[in-house]
């Protein structure tokens, strides 16, 4: 395969990923106008954002080309997401129980 063919193949892949990310961003805007409760909306938007970020990480930032680094970033991301969950649940405790929240 020539360098020119590799370049055009790479560009095609980049374009597909770019269109996918734009489409996912559009889905987030559609979700914002759905008549669903706040928690459901938040969860749906966060899932779409995570997929968008995953596409950008794997294809734009070429993380798929380095397995060691991919695992390192994946484990770190899971750790951050778990830490976020700790924060969210505690905010419910604050809104329901703490006197200074009202």
């Amino acid at each position, binding site marked *: 395969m020539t360098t020119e063919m590799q370049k055009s193949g790479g560009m095609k892949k980049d374009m597909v990923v770019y269109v996918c*990310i734009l489409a996912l*961003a559009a889905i987030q805007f559609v979700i*914002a106008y759905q008549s669903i409760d706040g928690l459901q909306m938040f969860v749906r938007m966060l899932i779409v*954002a995570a997929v968008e970020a995953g596409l950008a990480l794997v294809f*734009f930032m070429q993380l798929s080309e380095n397995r060691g680094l991919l695992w390192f*970033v994946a484990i770190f991301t899971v750790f951050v997401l778990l830490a976020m969950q700790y924060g*969210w649940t505690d*905010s419910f405790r604050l809104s329901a129980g703490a006197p200074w929240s009202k």
Partner: protein
Amino acid sequence: MSQAEMTMGGHSGVTAGPAFSIPTKKLAMWLFIIADTATFAACLVAYGFIRNATPNWPRPFHSITNVALMTFILVTSSLTMLMGVRAARAGDKSGALRWTFVTAAAGIIFALLHVREWLALIGEGMTLFKNPWGTGLFGAAFFGITGLHLTHVTAGVIALIVVGIRYKGGRYNADDLDILGLYWHFVDMVWMFVVPLVYLLNLAH
């Protein structure tokens, strides 16, 4: 045994290649990105925390046009950055330079749209500590998170221009553009979380 090996206690493996088999500069950028991810995650968690715990949280955004346009520009700038890096890797110096400056221009347009939005909100009476719609915490959270992101975009634009000029002068090469590209994609990636959490969840229905 060399002096260096003796200093290392005779373990020649200590001086093996860089971690994850990537250049040291690229690894440094990845470590920065990981650290910055934690910073943004902490900000977004803190934002979610106060938003959830505050009963009269404002929903001041009536239109999604501006934020949709900003999103389109930033995602497109990631594509132009990729094109620049690909051109640099293929030895097309003028193409690499052109796409790098197109990316910088997109960053500038994004920043200007952002400032325009800020000025509109300030014009409606929103400051860091108060606003006409509800809790004053909203201003601090909104300006804090979007300001942090805007700072990253501004720094990225400056870096794109500096690296572009030095690439043209021959001081930097395709690897340097590639490393800067990582930073730019990261800034784009953060925006993907800022939009739903800070803008779309606060739309006035």
